[in-house]
């Protein structure tokens, strides 16, 4: 019991069976999770999955239909948003345009009743920490996108919150800046050593930055885990399909032997796969099989084509098109059944590179064929 208590005090944020219903719509349905102190936690899900509602409940703008939200082990149900030590970076940042940078950051401190001296030191400290020491007297409109981003974070961090919520703050930035800000956010999180809860529909943001990611769909958490776990060991078909790129087949099980299945896809391919997720499929059950493009090896078909065996699935096909993207290049292969299969390839620019219409042999291990019972 005492051990349990000790464990819970380590958490900055806990949600216990939180539900939010709007009429008959279950926006958030029985979500429970806990976030240990100082970690970067992401909630990843398609738009409309309820992640924003969940965040608004943590911030206090909505109250849950049932369940409990605890910050530093204290329930905050009924606490108005301005009394919660949870700060939020809004999707469009919501910096105050009628105040300059200094006033924006000082606003929260003024609300807390800090003295002029304290405000001045704290504002300058936090500007140093986000490495923008000279912008205090600038107007918000004079800042670049990335600077605004950092000011929005500084405005929250100056108040020393228990939890910082970020609601897709990178959505409005262009690609290049977004990539740079991902790294910067992670560094800022380390520097401030505060719990970040990051909401996004962009899986690469979630995977790159987070210690833990929760995959949310239709109001429920499907899986919580480290980015690696989610990517390599998805617990449900939704996670396998949502996180990372993947080839997907629907098929029927034709043979089962200790953890491995043989699947006949609807288009008529046969492949071996490993059973993942809940439920053990029996012969005749429908399954979804997922294979990530980077696990599929593509070779020009020649005399040395490997036959399919227990350690390999092998399919012959024709290169349909090449999607060149530097190190992330990919080919689309049309198999005998007429389906397109994606496979990652290395294109060196030499004569050995695959070209459209080449005959190729694709092979991958059954271990990488993640099969979920439908």
């Amino acid at each position, binding site marked *: 019991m005492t051990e349990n208590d000790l464990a819970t005090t380590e958490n900055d944020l806990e949600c216990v069976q939180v539900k939010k219903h709007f009429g008959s719509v279950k926006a958030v349905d029985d979500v429970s999770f806990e976030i240990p102190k100082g970690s970067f936690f992401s909630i990843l899900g398609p738009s409309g999955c309820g992640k924003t509602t969940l965040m608004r409940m943590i*911030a*206090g*703008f909505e109250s849950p239909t049932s369940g409990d939200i605890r910050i530093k082990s204290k329930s905050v149900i009924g606490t*108005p*948003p*301005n009394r919660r030590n*949870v*700060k*939020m970076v*809004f*999707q*469009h940042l*919501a910096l*105050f*345009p*009628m*105040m300059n940078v200094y006033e924006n950051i000082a*606003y*929260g401190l*003024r*609300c*807390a009743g800090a003295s002029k001296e304290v405000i001045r030191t704290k504002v300058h400290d936090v500007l140093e920490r986000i490495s923008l020491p000279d912008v205090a007297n600038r107007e918000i409109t004079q800042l670049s996108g990335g600077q605004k981003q950092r000011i929005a974070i500084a*405005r*929250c961090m100056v*108040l020393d919150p228990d939890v910082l919520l970020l609601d897709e703050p990178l959505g409005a930035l262009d690609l290049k800046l977004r990539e740079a800000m991902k790294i910067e956010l992670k560094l800022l999180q380390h520097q401030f050593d505060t719990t970040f809860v990051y909401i996004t529909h962009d899986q690469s943001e979630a995977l790159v930055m987070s210690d833990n990611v929760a995959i949310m769909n239709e109001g429920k958490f499907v899986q919580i885990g480290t980015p690696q776990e989610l990517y390599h060991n998805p617990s449900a078909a939704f996670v396998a399909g949502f996180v990372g790129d993947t080839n997907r087949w629907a098929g029927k099980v034709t043979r089962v032997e200790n953890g491995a299945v043989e699947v006949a896809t609807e288009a008529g391919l046969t492949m071996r796969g490993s059973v993942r997720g809940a439920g053990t499929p029996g012969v005749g059950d429908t399954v979804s099989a997922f294979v990530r493009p980077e696990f599929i090896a593509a070779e020009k078909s020649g005399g040395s084509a490997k036959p399919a065996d227990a350690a390999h699935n092998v399919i012959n096909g024709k290169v349909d098109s090449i999607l060149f993207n530097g190190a992330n290049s990919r080919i689309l292969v049309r198999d005998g059944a007429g389906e397109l299969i994606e496979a990652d390839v290395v294109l060196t620019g030499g004569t050995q590179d695959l070209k459209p219409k080449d005959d190729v042999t694709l092979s991958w291990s059954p271990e990488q064929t993640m099969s979920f019972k439908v």
Partner: protein
Amino acid sequence: MMQSDIKRLSLILLFAPFALWIFLLIILPHLGMFYISVQEKVGPRMYEFGLGNYINFFTEPIYWNTLIRTGSMSLLVTVLALLLGFPIAYYIAKIAGNRTRGALFLMCLIPLWVSDLIRAFGWILLLRETGIISTSLQWAGVVNTPIEFLYNDAAVIMGLVYTVILFMIVPLVSTLDGMDNAMIEAGYNLGGNGPTVLRRIIIPYAMPGIVSGCIVVFMLTAGSYLTPILLGGKNSSWFTEQIYDQFITRYNWESGAAFGFLLLAFTSLVVWGGLKLSGQTLNSTVARS
């Protein structure tokens, strides 16, 4: 070459009605009025140049007292219109749903479909000694004798606020509408309570709308004639009434014209002072909304 000629021609054609309007209906009459205002009558049909009409205004306390009274009551009307209009505008822009918003806005506009005169008479029907309010108070036994609600400052102010409040609500709704709700939420999230968010975030954000609404309302009120006369009666002492008197009753156009310019100068001065106090410019307020 051709292209730029066509462009220039279309610009001239588009601009011409506006220029004509400004020149013929605004600049020319005002020049004429100004010319009249600096004429002094020295004998029958004998005039000479002089500032006598203006000096007359300052030496006769009744004139400048009326102007001060008009000015201060107009300011009071402006403040009341702002205090009443702001919550209404806030409700329309931020709280009401999309469908009710349109309906509420329309309800604000409906009084404009009826002429000023009819609306003022409507108030008279309500407020006069034999009017609806007085009769129903007697019927309810609250008072024994009929009460005259008309012909006092309160009636004038109420009538004016009612007439001009729409011009306060419209610019306020349009500025508040442009405000991201997240900004208000951010205000709370960072620790502000209701009054702080109102004072530090909503009002500063709405400042251009507030100032532009106040300018329009103040100008309309100070220059209004019908409502103060009808609801205030003979004692309303509105400055426009003085101007009317000079022109029509006394047939003293010179003095009337001078009063007209003094009213213009006075209201402009008040507006300028208001802009300076609120740190806004005409460009950022009236021109924007």
